[in-house]
């Protein structure tokens, strides 16, 4: 086992991080199913998971395409969601040092999960271990899950199995930690209302982008949750 070669002090962190990766495989499978249901090929689903490698943005793109939204509509809200990985980069820059190549590889692994696991640790070595193990584990299982889901989705009637609800159910699990703060809850509520109100009037998929106005909740000074 790879874990046996690791400093014993770092093993619990590495094990917990690897477990996160396995769970994310389920998310990847749902993405694969939803992606082919939205009309992508198995190859497109897999290339997207390899290159884009940020779950919420991929789900968002597929969700807009499935509704018949334009590439521009799909791209705009997905890129906005991807912007948060840049913020994670700012946080992790204090932990992830080393050569340029090493940091360029680390950049691809910047995710909700890898950042969350790293920031939950104390000390730079533990944080770096949590980041790398979570990032690599999620990368492996996210892509395997995508392939499995895409192959499965090509074979079955997704509506009959209720898999059209798997994507919003996945979003519920993804968004939940964001509601830990008062600002997060208000932004979520405002975003949902703006989206519903604009759906009938704006081009398909753009209602999600309109919901971004809710981030202005952050202009006010933060108050305790």
């Amino acid at each position: 086992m790879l874990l046996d070669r690791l400093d014993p002090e770092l093993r619990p962190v590495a094990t917990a991080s690897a477990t996160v990766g396995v769970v994310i495989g389920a998310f990847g499978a749902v993405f694969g199913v939803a992606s082919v249901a939205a009309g992508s090929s198995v190859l497109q689903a897999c290339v997207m998971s390899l290159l884009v490698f940020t779950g919420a943005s991929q789900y968002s793109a597929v969700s807009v395409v499935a509704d018949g939204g334009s590439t521009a509509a799909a791209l705009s809200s997905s890129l906005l969601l991807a912007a948060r990985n840049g913020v994670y980069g700012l946080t992790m820059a204090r932990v992830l040092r080393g050569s340029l190549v090493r940091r360029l590889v680390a950049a691809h692994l910047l995710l909700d999960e890898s950042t969350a696991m790293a920031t939950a640790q104390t000390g730079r070595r533990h944080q770096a271990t949590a980041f790398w193990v979570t990032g690599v584990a999620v990368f492996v299982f996210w892509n395997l899950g995508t392939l499995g889901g895409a192959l499965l989705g090509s074979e079955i009637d997704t509506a009959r199995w209720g898999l059209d609800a798997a994507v919003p159910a996945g979003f519920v699990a993804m968004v939940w930690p964001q509601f830990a703060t008062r600002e997060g809850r208000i932004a979520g509520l405002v975003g949902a209302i703006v989206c519903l109100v604009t759906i009938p009037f704006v081009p398909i998929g753009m209602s999600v982008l309109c919901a971004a106005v809710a981030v202005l909740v952050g202009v006010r000074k933060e108050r305790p949750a």
Partner: protein
Amino acid sequence: MSWTLVIALGLGAYAFKVLGLVVIGARTLPPVVERCLALIPAALLSALIVKDTFSVGHDLVLDARAAGVAVAVVATWRRAPIPVVIVLGSAVTAIVRAAF
């Protein structure tokens, strides 16, 4: 799904990651900007949930998906693991759809 979308999203998503980690690095942004950026997932994911649950194209609808997503919300609130949330949400949607 177009290849343009796949490639453009791939490049854009990686550009944001490199911008944060390598280009800006450990420097800090104005607090108000950081606070607004931190709220993007809450706002957009909530919007995606209601869109995927209550709409078809430009029409607002109430169908079996609402039941499935409601169960997913309860399961998440009760701290169910992610795969369980996804399976429950899908299963309830399928059952309600088949029943009515």
